């Protein structure tokens, strides 16, 4: 269990500032998720923490110790790469034991640790195979196992599930989370999938263009986004935004409300026409074109008889309206 602290960390590649003055605390034993759109610097920040890239400015502390001059292996972190990065010419057993072998661990101890990790991850039957003879999910587990064997201070995951199909992804999501909780290990997990962030995280860090937009627990970020970017980025389908007179009525430049906070109401002030309906089985997502041509999305029950072209009207739940000023900052959140 280790905490990781970033102090004013900056990194530039050529002329682009990829991470800009990042201040962040990764609490010990917690699952922290970095989320943000593609190219916002999540991977770069993770690699800075891992030591695979050098920090230009600022400090990185692990358990209070400055890591500026510490090589990657000595930081005690283990990384799980998006591409798994297994050693293709080595068996699963050798892959799992590699870190111990280069650390000159006695062979008997290596065997014991490898067996234990293999058992934990259900890899025992595959120990003599080469990575090429494994399925995607199995490779993923080997990659996690390779990180586990070293008993690291913290896990770093860079989009580890993006190469898996949807079913396997949600299964691995739960497995990774359970493993992390059982071991009580600090974890940083990079994803650009906000659903993954919501379901796995103790703490979410939302990035945009190399800066942190908001840090907080998943529900806190969902319920109290501090700016319009976070409000729009977290949540699926994403928040509806209205501006102009409707927003002015609430004393804001923009107002936002989530699809589930719209109530069907024949006398509601949001009037429009149904354009498309997405049936999800348990609920329907209704895309509505308002009278001023703004598109909004509403979450409705499947029993509502809706079809494209039908007139429709809503009332947003007044308690769940988010207000933003002209700088897109949330007005009600401190």
């Amino acid at each position, binding site marked *: 269990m280790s905490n990781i602290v970033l102090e004013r960390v900056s990194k530039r590649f050529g002329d682009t500032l990829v991470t800009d003055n990042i201040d962040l605390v990764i609490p010990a034993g917690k699952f922290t998720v970095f989320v943000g759109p593609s190219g916002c610097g999540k991977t770069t920040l993770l690699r800075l923490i*891992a030591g*695979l890239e050098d920090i230009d400015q600022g400090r990185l502390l692990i358990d209070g110790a400055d890591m500026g001059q510490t*090589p*990657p*292996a000595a930081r005690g*972190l*283990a*990384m799980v*790469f*998006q*591409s798994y*990065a*297994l*050693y*293709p*010419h080595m068996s699963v057993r050798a892959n799992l034991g*590699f*870190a111990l072998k*280069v*650390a000159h661990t006695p062979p008997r101890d290596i065997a014991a640790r490898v067996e234990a990790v293999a058992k934990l991850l259900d890899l025992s039957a595959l120990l003599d195979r080469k990575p090429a003879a494994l399925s995607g999910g199995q490779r993923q587990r080997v990659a996690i196992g*390779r990180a586990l064997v*070293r008993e690291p201070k913290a896990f770093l995951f860079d989009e580890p599930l993006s190469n898996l199909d949807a079913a396997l992804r949600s299964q691995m999501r739960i497995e990774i989370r359970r493993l992390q909780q059982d071991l009580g290990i600090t974890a940083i997990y990079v994803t650009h999938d906000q659903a993954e962030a919501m379901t796995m995280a103790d703490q979410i860090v939302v990035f945009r263009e190399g800066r942190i937009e908001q840090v907080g627990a998943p529900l806190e970020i969902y319920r109290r986004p501090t700016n319009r970017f976070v409000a729009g980025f977290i949540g699926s389908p994403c928040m509806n935004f209205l501006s102009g007179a409707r927003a002015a009525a609430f004393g804001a430049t923009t107002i936002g409300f989530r699809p589930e906070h719209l109530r069907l109401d024949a006398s509601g002030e949001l009037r429009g026409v149904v354009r498309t309906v997405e049936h999800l089985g348990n609920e329907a997502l209704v895309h509505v074109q308002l009278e001023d041509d703004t598109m909004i999305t509403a979450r409705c029950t499947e029993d509502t008889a809706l079809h494209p072209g039908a007139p429709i009207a809503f009332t947003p739940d007044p308690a769940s309206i988010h207000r933003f000023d002209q700088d897109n900052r949330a007005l009600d959140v401190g």
Partner: protein
Amino acid sequence: MSLHSSSFGRSAAHWTPNAHAQFLRHRVDDPSVGAAFIVAFPLLWALLASFKTELEAVAFPPRFVGFSWSLDNYRQVLGESDYLGALRNSIIIAGGSSLLTLLLGVPAAWAMAFAPTRHTRALLLWMLSTKMLPAVGVLIPIFLFYRDWGLLDTHLGVALLLTAGNLPIAIWMLYANFKEVPGEILEAARMDGASLTQEILIVLAPMAAPGLASTFFLIFTLAWNESFWTLNITTTDATTLTAFIAAFSSPQGLFWAKLSAASMLSIVPVIVIGWLCQRQLVSGLTFGAVK
């Protein structure tokens, strides 16, 4: 095995004179057969000449069959001149310089492929540009330096020159091969605590083995066949097979048949090595072409 014999059985059953003609025509029409013949022609010519007498070897029109086969040339080349000494020098010089080239080239290519700077591309081009200069352009200065440093006609002197000459090619080939290796795998090794040497030797080298083998083979062949420097800076102690072969064209006159026999003897080692690492070579030379 059973599949093989059954298909053999079937084709034998359908083997008609017509099919035979078709088979032949197909083989002759195949452009690669023609190309292979053109490439191999000088070699075949030399092979035939090596079994002829000196007179038959220069006869015009040349005879491809019906001359008296004899091993006299081989006997003379092996018996009356220092073939074994030249062979030994060639092995030491080509082998030594090829190993040295890899020793220098692998770390250089590693740095260019996995830790590039903004100068890497320019550096690669600049290295290759040194190959555009004709060697004779630097013969005099090198000869003078070598004379002063006592490197003329030494194994070390020739090997160093060949290393310098082949290094750009080796680095280019290794660089292209290393580029195909995912950098994340090396980073994983770094995270796992591997030292730089371990990273290169236990992780990178096995993955790039075909590329390493084909690079070694290419530079070994180039060093083995190099004749400009070996002719100009060796006289007796470090004469290689190429200088040895050339000796048959002077000064007592041109001995074509013996020269051919000496050539045949000098390419045998290369053919043997090439044959032994055939499979590695094919996958190494097409590395990246098939994904």
